[in-house]
């Protein structure tokens, strides 16, 4: 039994404590916004916040989030209007959209820690999140927009 908080809700999960958080979120809690992309922490599609920090859910065991607070894309903002989400829409970032949950969660964690990142800091922070459609230019612009308002 793992006790944790997911999107503000306290819960006890009866699942293999070695199960990666990714599969617990998707298969046990039916929160499919967090995506499977590689399973080895190299694509960022499964990025969630654990106690506010960006983590790859495929690399975090359920036992490692005992007592911690997990936020997924579904819980980032009650109305889906986090400034990062708004910036993503303002700049028409997505193409297929599959990686965007992870991209948005990574960007939101970056801005929570560093509200005014430099361009280099944005590029470095987002480099772990792959977009095979190639939306990087708009992703970087959207992070900047969310950060500075322009």
């Amino acid at each position, binding site marked *: 039994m793992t006790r944790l908080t997911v999107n503000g809700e306290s819960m006890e999960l009866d699942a293999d404590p070695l199960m990666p958080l990714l599969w617990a979120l998707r298969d*046990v809690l039916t929160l*499919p916004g967090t995506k499977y992309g590689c399973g080895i922490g*190299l694509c960022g599609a499964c990025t969630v916040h654990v106690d506010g920090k960006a983590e790859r859910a495929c690399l975090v065991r359920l036992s490692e989030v005992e007592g911690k607070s997990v936020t997924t894309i579904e819980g980032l903002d009650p109305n889906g209007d986090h400034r990062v989400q708004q910036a993503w829409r303002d700049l028409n970032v997505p193409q297929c959209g599959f990686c965007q949950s992870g991209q948005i969660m990574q960007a939101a964690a970056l801005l929570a820690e560093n509200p005014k990142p430099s361009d280099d800091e944005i590029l470095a922070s987002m480099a772990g*999140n792959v977009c*095979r459609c190639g939306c990087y230019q708009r992703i970087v612009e959207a992070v900047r927009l969310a950060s500075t308002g322009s």
Partner: protein
Amino acid sequence: MLKYLETVDAPALSVIKPSRRGFLAGSAAFMLGVYATRGEAFPKWPTGGEQMPHGLRDDPLIFVSIDSDGTVTLVAHRSEMGTGSRTSLPMIMADEMEADWDRVKIVQAEGDEPKYGNQDTDGSRSLRHHIQAARKIGGSVRHMMQAAAAQEWGVDAGEVTVTNHAARHGDKMMDFGDLAEAAMALPVPTHEEIAYKSEDEFRYVGKGEVQIYDLHDITTGKAVYGADVSLPGMKYAVAVRPPVVGGKVVSFDASEALAMPGVVGVYELPHSIPPAKFAPLGGVAVVADTTWAALQARDQIKIEWDDGPHGDYSSGPFMEEMKATALDKGKVLRKQGDPDAAFANAARTFGQTYTQDHMAHIPMEPPVALANYTADGLEIWAPVQSPYAARTDTAAALGLDPEQVRVNVTLLGGGFGRKSKADYVTEAALLSREVGAPVRMQWTRDDDVRHCFYHTTSAERIEVALDDAGKVTGWRHNSVAPSILSTFAPDGGHQFMIENGMGHVDMPFAIPNVSVENGQAFAHTRIGWFRAVSNVPRAWAIGSFVGDLAAELGKDQREMWLELIGAPRQVDPAAEGYPEDFWNYGEVYDEFPIDTGRLAHVLNVAADAIGYGKALPEGEGIGLAVHRSFVSYVACAAHVKVVDGKITVPEMHMAIDCGFAANPERIRSQIEGATVMGMTVALHSSITFENGAPQQHNYNDYDVVRSDNFPGKVITHIVPHGFDTHATGVGEPGVPPVAPAIANGLFVATGQRKRALPFGETV
């Protein structure tokens, strides 16, 4: 009316067996409509769409339903994998209809080509083929609204105007919702009866202001992809597949796997013998209560394999063999003038060989499918580019009638050609039948990289004959690459007309003596199509060769391109020795000719925009390339800068001529994305085989361009055209010119010439 993915939480299987009577009635009604318009429809806009399987449908009664509250529901019948066609085609319908976009809902069609027309979403065809059918659908409804309002008010239809979701006459106004019942019961007008909008009357088309329909859902995690559909009692499957294509299981021991908690069962999948089209490879699948349980159990299965006939396929020797073959004369596909004499009489000749490794598509969403096999039939939820092929292939594999199979299409987390081949759907269906429960088959990234339908590997030899003045008098290009055809039919070792038509026989330069050849190479893995297909190696070879030749002759790169392209002309394929089966992307040639003026124009647009010719510091250079594919013209101007030994592209200008631009915003996004995929092709994408098996697994050894080194500041220039110029392909044609432009820029920057793809990130 089908609701897009509204079956997700509470799957209703009532439509799993469509009523045959209803189907036939609908079909007959449709045929009447077609006879009224076929052949005459949009005389300025004939496309190859009619020749595609099941052709085009333009019946509003199939694509449009309107509720009494005025909500207009439009069917998107093409799969959405990131190009935006799920938004753009309904947007065109809505605009012609005078519907208010804010009151439009979009539902996704299930795989049913007899009903919706062709749904095979590849070949950069969605807008090119369906734009006019979308206009007909919208225009029909506008006229039906007009006629219904005229009846209601007792006035002539000609006096009623239809604008912004309502019919109007004097101070009278009726909303679409109030007119819907009467309007949709009226006869559907013929094409000739419809007064179409002129370009300046469009509110959405050509503007690029409509956002993609799924934008809010994507940014909030609510968008539904293949692995996001759940059914009560659903089980989770993963599989181990033969490491070598054509291999099979000799024996396996699943005792440890079966003893693990949560494991439902372990099943051998039927193996296929090439050519097997899209049939599953075979192997052993484990079904469990969670993905995690299935993955853990999979690791415990011990399998002895028979590798079959391709167990000695190794990329290194195979490439050497292809390069040697390319030096010889190949099967001649196009002969213009007297190339032998041109080379015999040349003052000098110059030749180079360009190669490319295999590539895997690796869409962000690996292959995945949910199948529910019951006594009533089979229902599928899956991200598929060709839902009707998925339906008929899976029906055949299970011995079902296609009428017993329903394929619901989710959003695709990328496709790039991989998801045209629905082996993963058939696997899920076989397992659901075996287990007696809904089964989600999840491919891991390793599975995806190691069991792809790979982009071919190639050696392209180009030689030219030159006269005393350094003018090119003869061209010989021998392309050697395993063919896609080998996936469908016994392998003859030669490419076929579709591959030959992708930048090979249609080489557009003004050279009097030409020999276009294809040397033999046999496939030893599954060859499939990857975004832009054979255009990638051909544009790479031809584009790099132009740079090579310019350097050899001491000419400027841009001048070299323009000299070879020559004066603006419409290529006469017969006069230039093209084969009789020349494939022009399925389009009638006279409607979509090769226009070298348009080719040169996009090159000049991109070159001028980047400031080609400006002085740059050492270690920097601008590379140019231009290529026609999918009947569009795209040029790339790449500013390459080597920083601490790393190849970077701080600025790139892309110019595209795709005829009439229905949704410029999504054209730009496709082209921006193509620069990233093109740079990945240039620097990273290599699948190599040893002993028959691919050596790469995941992003650790098959990486892509990331945000720390992507083409920065990509600016897309769209050549403006009115409705008198066909809309042409957008999804694919951005990719081919990117790698040669980067290589040409790198040469200017460093003097290093790359002739093998990929060439790595460092110099």
